[in-house]
Structure formats: C-alpha cells, structure tokens
C-alpha cells in the first residue's frame, strides 16, 4: 500500500503497467503467505530446541562439507545420533565451541569422556604379522585384505586412521608405533571411534581408570598366540566374578565393562591372569583406614573387602592391611558407624 502511495504520483501515465503486476504478484505473495501460515499451523512439529540452537550456531552455508544435507541436517544428527560436532569446515573452531556449549548444557550431568583403545597391540614390536602389507596406508583398506595383515583379526593394524581423524591433535604415535591419547586434548568428539575399522576405540568417562585392553574374541590358547603383546582377554571370567558391582560381563570370550556400573575400584585389574586389564590409577588410590574408637567390630567391612585386607575379631576394633588394600572404597559405604576413612 505504501508502495502504491509513493509510486502512483510518479507514474500516473503508466498506472496500469504498475498496478496490474503489483496486484498479481501481491496476490501471489498473499496466497503463498497464507498457505505457509496454514502449513505452519497444521503441520507444526515440536523440534528439540537444541537443534535450533545449533542451527543458529552454524554458519548456515548449507555447503554439505559435514557430509550431511545442509546445516539443519547436521544439527539434528548431532542431537539425535551423536554425530561428531567438529565437521563444520566453514564454521571452524568458533562453531565447534558454540555447539559444544549447546550440547554441553544437557551433557553437563554426565562426566566428560575420553577415548580409550581396547587393544594393547599395534606397534612395530607389538604386533604379530600374518603377511607384509604393502598397500594404501590406511587401516580401512588394510583390514580388507585377508582379514588384515596382523594375526589377530580383532586387533589394531597400526595405520593410524584414528590419528588422521583427530582434528584436535590428541592422538600421538611414539617411536614404537604405538598410539597414545592425550586426555587433556581429547574432546570425545568420536571421530576416531568412527574411523577405526576394528572398533577398538570407545569413549570412557574420564573418572574411570580401568580399561580392558583387548577386543579379541579368540579362545584361550589361540588368543595368546595371536596377540602381539600376549596380553589378550581370554574370557576366563575371573574379573566378572570378582567385580563387586557386577559391572563386567563376558560374552564371546571377551570381557567388557559397563561403565555406568563400574566403581573404578581396580579390583579386576589385580585378578586378570593375562594382565589384559589395565588400571592407570593402581597404587594411587587412597587407602582405607579404620578409626579404632568408632569401630564396633561388626565385621561387615571384613566380609565385604574383596582383597581380605581387613582383619579383626568380632566386637574388636578392625585394622586395614595397607599393602593389601586396593582403595576400592567398598567398605566405606557399608560401615554402619562411618568409621572408615580414605587417606
């Protein structure tokens, strides 16, 4: 309308050439607007607000560099299917930061995770080879030839696809050809998890220090023959039986820890016959100490201690053998008198 008022005096002689198109296109716009409004109302769908926040954080170029169809597609796949958040090339570090913040809001209840290898093999000296592979230097292609060049068809082939995938420079390779993850740099983006064709990398909560360093499903004698470091999981089930919280299950000759249940006591690592389970906190945990004056000698702690580190007669003050204590803190919670402290 305003347009008409402004332009009418300017073009009185060409009135019809202006009014007509304005009416036609205006009507077109009105119809489209109404149809879209109608559609918006009738076909309204609730969208996870994080998706919209992420869309706003992305550059909106719809370039498809992330492999998804456009920014909206990427945003919803981040929220719904744990797609790595660092795939946006145009957005760069700034976008990653923003998305991390958005996703972090809801993830803050959970602890930070870091990537962990589930294989102890993989270096030049730590692998038993089946044949000499001379192809494209990529794990993805190496595993396709006769089930991989290493004897263990579950283990690391050592062509560092994970390192190539990591954009945060968190994975380094030492002179032995072994990969190490720098926990401080790891953002748990999952790029390496997706890159490993043998699925050896898993994201583990930062607060847990116990890892089963094997993914082999081979049976006992064979597993050890295949493994480059001779530290395979042989599926004996000892760890599973010892675990105070039943966090370990053995399936197909392979033990796996359910980190939701794991209390990070490190007991499994002490019993593993092949030393396949590593505990990076071993020896660094606090030891239990019983306050003699509070102890009533109920023996509950002695019964619960997985390593029989607590001794004492009934109704007598108990004592902890500090060498045997692994610091699992099992006794602490069970003591009715709260007489046990970790020091």
């Amino acid at each position, binding site marked *: 309308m305003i347009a008409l008022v402004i332009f009418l005096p300017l073009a009185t002689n060409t009135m019809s050439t202006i009014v*007509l*198109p304005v009416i*036609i*296109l205006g009507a*077109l*716009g009105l119809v*489209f607007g109404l*149809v*879209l409004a109608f*559609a*918006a109302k*009738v*076909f*309204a*769908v609730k969208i996870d607000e994080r998706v919209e926040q992420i869309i706003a954080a992305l550059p909106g170029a*719809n*370039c*498809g*560099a992330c*492999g*998804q*169809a*456009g920014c*909206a*597609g990427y945003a*919803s796949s981040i929220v719904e299917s744990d797609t790595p958040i660092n795939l946006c090339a145009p957005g760069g570090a700034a976008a990653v930061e923003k998305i991390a913040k958005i996703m972090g809001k809801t993830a803050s209840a959970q602890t930070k995770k870091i990537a962990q290898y589930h294989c102890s093999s993989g270096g030049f000296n730590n692998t038993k080879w089946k044949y000499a592979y001379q192809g*494209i*230097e*990529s794990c*993805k*292609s190496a595993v396709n030839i006769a089930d991989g060049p290493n004897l263990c068809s579950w283990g690391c082939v050592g062509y560092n696809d994970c390192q190539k995938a990591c954009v945060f420079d968190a994975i380094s390779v030492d002179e032995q050809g072994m990969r190490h993850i720098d926990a401080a740099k790891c953002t748990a983006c999952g790029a390496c998890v997706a890159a490993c064709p043998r699925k050896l990398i898993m994201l583990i909560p930062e607060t847990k220090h116990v890892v089963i360093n094997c993914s082999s499903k081979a049976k006992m004698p064979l597993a050890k023959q295949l493994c480059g470091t001779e530290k395979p999981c042989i599926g004996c089930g000892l760890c599973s039986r010892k675990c105070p919280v039943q966090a370990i299950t053995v399936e197909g000759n392979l033990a796996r820890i359910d980190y939701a249940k794991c209390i990070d006591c490190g007991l499994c690592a002490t019993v593993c016959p092949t030393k396949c389970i590593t505990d990076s906190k071993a020896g660094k945990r606090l030891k239990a100490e019983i306050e003699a004056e509070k102890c009533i000698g109920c023996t509950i702690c002695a019964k619960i201690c997985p390593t029989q580190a607590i001794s004492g007669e009934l109704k007598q003050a108990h004592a902890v053998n500090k060498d045997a204590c692994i610091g699992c803190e099992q006794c602490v919670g069970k003591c009715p008198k709260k007489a046990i402290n970790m020091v």
Partner: protein
Amino acid sequence: MGFLGQLFSMAIAAILIQNFVLARFLGLCPYLGVSKKLDSAFGMGMAVIFVMTMASAFCYIIYQYLLVPYGLEYLQTLAFILTIAALVQFVEMVIQKNSPALYKSLGVYLPLITTNCAVLGVAILNITPLADGSRYNFLWSVLNGFLSGVGFTFVLLAMAGIRERLELVDMPKSMRGMPSGLILAGIMALAFYGFMGMKI
C-alpha cells in the same frame, strides 16, 4: 514419433546429452556438497526430483496464466523463485508432520534445494522456446522437470559412489575432499562430452 518415442528422446536428452550438472553447469553446489555418502546423495536426489517436478508444474501454470496474459514476462525470475521457495518450504512442513520417516531421509535436503539453481533452471527452460519455436505444454513441462531431476540424481549417485571409494585412496592431504572431488567431476564431465551433439 509417438508419445513413448518422444518421451524416450526427452529422457535421453535430459539425462545424458543436456545433463543439468555436467552440461549446463547448474546445481553444482549440492552436486559437490552432498556427494560424500551414497545414502545422503540418494536422499538429495529424490528430493530434487520431487521438487523439480512440482516446480515445473507450478511455474508453468503461473507463467502461462498469470504472467503471459498481462505481458509481465520480465517478472518471471521473481515469480518463479518465490514459487519455488514457498513450495519447498511447504513441502518440508508437510513431510515433517505427515511422514517423520520420510522427513528424516528427505526433509533435511529440502532447504538446500531452494538455493539449487537447477530447479530455477528447469522452470525457466520449460518456458524457453525450443529449436522450432514451439514451447512445451503443461504435460511435457512436468515430464521435463521430472526427467531433468532424474538426470541430476543419476550423476549425483555416480559421483557419490566414486567419492566413497576415493576416500580410501592414498593421496596428498591437500588433495583430499573437495579438490579431488572437483577433479573427479571434471573427468565425469569429460565422459559426458561423449554424449554431446547426439541426435535422436
């Protein structure tokens, strides 16, 4: 030439000889962008076919019955792109509500299509006079839209199939991704030059 014969010659022309991507230089952004994975490429292709067909129909009607009678051909770009944008948005909303499964596989590609020049290209092409001065009628416009979409999907899928393999190839780091994709596109375009000037 009967209906089927005409249809066949149009199909060959739209898919091979005058392929939108490799011969007309249209729709390159999605062609290069959404060709990393075969399944995304398939979804994108289907969305493009759908929108191209719909856009051909709508734009033809608008051109023939709203613009031509009043001599407003100079507004064609404006009217067409408005129609396409509204259409895409509408379709997106409908699918999102009525078929979440379809939306998951198709819907995310739709906003990308608004900026796909191939859609506007086919709408304008449909109203451009042919060699003998005649124009497509409604039916042939829609068919042309559909077949051009098929042509787009065809090369998109071919490209995605090759690029998936290309990912595994050992090549200098700076060539990875877009550069190798572009060179691949060049080689494909070269191959499509073989169809040029073909007469049916």
